[in-house]
């Protein structure tokens, strides 16, 4: 049996708080008794009565704080004493966040002082300011999710290197989606917990895959975004490789799903090498890329679309994948055939109007495989494919409305669909437009009723341009706050052809355009 004592002169603490600390220590293993009290004569008498009045405490006065621990072993007594002293000033974090959590913290440091349990900093501040703030966060041991864009390449590389050295993830810049510990960050869908861990250099790509996983009855362990530029050779897939390594070690993750636009050659090699090192099954899909690179690595599974990749991950984890297989059913084919017979001959072009950047890329990839010459403000092939004027479509064109030129000083169209609705109308009024292809993305962070807002535009467009075929996909889950079924029904009610997956919508668009060419 051992007694450990500390007397802190001139320290005042509220007696109720001291009782709480005494009680907490007394209840711990190996501790026989503990007391934290001011050295008033009465308190010292009490200590003496309970056999805790050690020699050192006898001289304590009413302004001295006395800490005493009686334990089975001297080491335990000393350890507990140290813990008690720490508890005097430790903020309470047991019940949720700190006491000031309902107020905005004036600085990150102040937030950390209030809640030392914070482990992730989410940045959505101007890009040039990110590096300084994120470096501070990393120095404090925080993982970072950088939603901001306009962060320089140099800053991105510096932050990711620093994160890697410290074992901290740096997601982004320009990372819009993540799902960690059951919590969605940024734009994210509500999904069941499960065994699929997603690593994505593509925000809406992650969401589309999540939606497919959900539709197949699968669930997510985690989704980590990296930002699109991570897979450039300049960054070298630093975050993606780190994320793959993290999920490889994660017990809850059974299958990995690696997504993005095609990495640049050197980054591609490193990323696939890291993926191939993983002992778990890995599905890899790069929008607009080729499967050969993936097939070249044993253990990696390619897919033809985001949705299919999601479905494949479910089946590799032992689930069913049927719901994610994009194919045109007979009903859709008949509808397209009926439409093409009635429509004006001059209407012959595809116009895609997107809120999701990766979905815009997937549209170019899938529709482009049968319909050549599609241009975009965010072209898959930068060398030839850029629109002359992003504000006015010509020929086959798909527009990413989330691009900087549309969002400068404005909310993203996933948050405020109004600019996209205006563009839908603009495209439908163009007498050369045959098909308007568009996405609706649901989930946390997105507009509360994007289908409703968009449906109004479609109804209006169909009054003046009844010949235009509207083809939509809705990226979402039944758990999303907007409600997947209701959002689909709203678009269908407005006259749009609503596909089950985005890839399905692209196939329908391609089929419709082929019909126009056939005539």
């Amino acid at each position, binding site marked *: 049996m051992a007694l450990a004592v500390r007397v802190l*002169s*001139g*320290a*005042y*603490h*509220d007696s109720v*708080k001291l009782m709480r600390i005494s009680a907490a220590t007394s209840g711990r293993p190996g501790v026989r008794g503990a007391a934290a009290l001011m050295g008033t004569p009465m308190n010292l008498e009490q200590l003496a009565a309970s056999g805790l009045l050690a020699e050192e405490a006898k001289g304590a*006065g009413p*302004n001295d704080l006395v800490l005493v621990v009686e334990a089975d072993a001297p080491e335990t007594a000393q350890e507990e004493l140290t813990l008690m002293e720490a508890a*005097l*000033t430790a903020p*309470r974090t047991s019940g949720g*966040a*700190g*006491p*000031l*959590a309902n*107020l*905005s*913290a*004036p*600085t*990150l*440091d*102040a*937030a*950390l*002082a*209030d*809640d030392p*349990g*914070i*482990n*992730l*900093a*989410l*940045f*959505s*501040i*101007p890009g040039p*300011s990110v590096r*300084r703030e994120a470096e501070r966060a990393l120095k404090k041991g*925080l993982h970072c999710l950088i*939603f*901001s864009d306009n962060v320089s390449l140099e800053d991105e590389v510096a932050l990711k290197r620093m994160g890697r050295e410290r*074992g*901290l*993830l740096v997601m982004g810049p320009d990372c819009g989606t993540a799902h*960690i*510990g059951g*919590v*969605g*960050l940024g734009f994210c869908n509500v999904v069941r917990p499960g065994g699929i861990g997603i690593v994505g250099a593509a925000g809406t790509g992650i969401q589309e895959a999540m939606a497919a996983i959900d539709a197949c009855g699968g669930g997510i362990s985690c989704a980590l975004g990296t930002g699109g530029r991570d897979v450039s050779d300049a960054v070298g897939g630093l975050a993606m490789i780190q994320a793959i390594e*993290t999920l490889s*070690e*994660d017990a*809850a993750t059974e299958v990995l799903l690696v997504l993005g636009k095609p990495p640049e050659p050197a980054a591609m090699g490193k990323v696939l090498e890291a993926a191939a090192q993983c002992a778990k099954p890995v599905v890899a899909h790069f929008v607009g890329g080729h499967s050969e690179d993936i097939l070249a690595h044993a253990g990696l599974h390619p897919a033809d679309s985001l949705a299919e990749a999601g479905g494949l991950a479910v089946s590799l984890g032992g689930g069913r994948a049927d719901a994610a297989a994009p194919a045109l059913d007979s009903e859709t084919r008949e509808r397209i055939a009926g439409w093409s017979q009635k429509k004006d001959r001059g209407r012959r072009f595809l116009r895609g109007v997107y809120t999701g950047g990766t979905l815009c890329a997937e549209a170019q990839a899938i529709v482009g495989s049968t319909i050549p010459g599609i241009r975009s403000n965010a072209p898959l092939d930068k060398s030839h494919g850029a629109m002359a004027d992003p504000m006015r479509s010509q020929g086959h064109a798909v527009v990413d409305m989330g691009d900087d030129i549309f969002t400068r000083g404005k909310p993203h169209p996933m*948050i405020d669909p109004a600019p996209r609705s205006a563009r839908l109308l603009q495209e439908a009024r163009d007498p050369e437009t045959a098909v308007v292809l568009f996405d609706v993305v649901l989930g*946390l*962070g997105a507009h509360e009723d994007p289908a409703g807002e968009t449906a109004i535009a479609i109804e209006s467009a169909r009054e003046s341009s009844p010949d235009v075929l509207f083809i939509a996909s809705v990226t979402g889950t039944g758990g999303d706050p907007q409600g997947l079924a209701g959002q689909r029904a709203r678009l269908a009610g407005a006259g749009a052809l609503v596909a089950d997956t985005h890839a399905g919508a692209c196939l329908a668009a391609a089929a419709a355009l082929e019909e126009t060419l056939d005539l």
Partner: protein
Amino acid sequence: MSAKKLLEGVRVANVGVELFAESLSAQNAPVVQVDWRPPAGGDPEMIEHLDRLSVCDAANDDAIERLQAARPVWVDIGFAIEDIPGMGERTLLHAGPPITWEHMSGPLKGAMIGAALLEGWANDAKAAEKLCASGEISFEPCHHHSTVGPMAGVVSPSMPVSIIENRAPEELGGGGRAYCTLNEGLGKVLRYGAYSPDVLARLRWMSDELAPALRAALRVTPEGLDIKNVIARALQMGDEAHNRNVAATSTVARALMPYLAEAVSDTKVITRVAEFLAGNDHFFLNLAMPAAKASLDTMAGVEGCSLVYAMSRNGTDFGIRVAGLGDAWFTAPAKHPVGLFFPGYSQEDANPDIGDSAIMETLGVGGFAMAAAPAIVEFVGGSTAEAFQATNEMYGITWARSRDYTLPALDFAGVPTGIDVRQVIETGIYPVINTGIAHREPGIGQIGAGVLRAPEAPFQKAFEALVEKYSG
């Protein structure tokens, strides 16, 4: 270290768009919104300076240890001329940074006149004013003499002064002393520039009867009265230790009474002293201020330290002193407090901010500890939410949380302590100060109480000096 731990669950600091924090809250995920603003207003040159001044971090850690360790104890009562270091026969001390007679505001001039009359240097106010203007009297800041004074803060040679000693270990700056006059009460008092015969009569009584009685009582206590302890307890009882001192004053009275009864045989004296304490809620302020000074002075001269160890106003100028910049004052014109006024007075009657009492905010109480004092939230807008916000904001410009001064309403979080010039410049958040309001004319006294922000220029000048000295 790996990222595996993160996957178990996120606790997020959301820096930027609030929408993301709302989304996390809706998922019942712990999140703190950080009210981010471009550092130093986004000025790249200033940001570079800020980054270079990270050299101050270590010194600040050292200095804050000294502040945290300070243990101010009320050990005795003496007289200005005998006890205050460097006090001269024809010296009058005043609050704030140095100032000449010509530039003094009404209440400070009034207090100087009153002090000259009290000392018997002149027979009437006119003669006293003439004397003050003649250059025969030496006017010096209290702060240059280990002293602090509320409002005008005038100390004349014959005045009794409380002696506060820092009983921290010597290696942490212990042993230093600070001095302050005894508090006269509210209304027409010298510290607000009143000098009518009743004011002077009270001061004489304080000198002749109150001070000796309290001294006798103090001298029979085993080791004086631990003021740190009283401030800490008062924060648990609704004081913020600047504009509300009723709990602390009561605590001191309760602690002293047995010793007073033991030390003083004349029960009439005991009665008058007890009545005086009972009728003066702010008696404790004149103990809290030198306690704060004795604590903060331990940081003075710590090389490389960017923490403020004094904020003070003389009714004309507001000044600060910074630990790593020695004795220098960084000043700007004092602002007018915004407040609540006694009947018959309004904002137009208010004198610019005055007094050494901002030493309380420098310590981290007063306006910084508004979350402790729901009873006086009217000063900050009327709601406890605003009081919490005042304290919350100050965490953005302070180096630490006090270990001993804690806020029950915030789960016993320590008050924000150690104002960092760099953080003030980085955030653009300026210290919030609670204060009494003096009439701008001499002789009238206190007309209200309120709150204000420290002016920006002293911090900007101090920052430039830090850059000059330390960022090379």
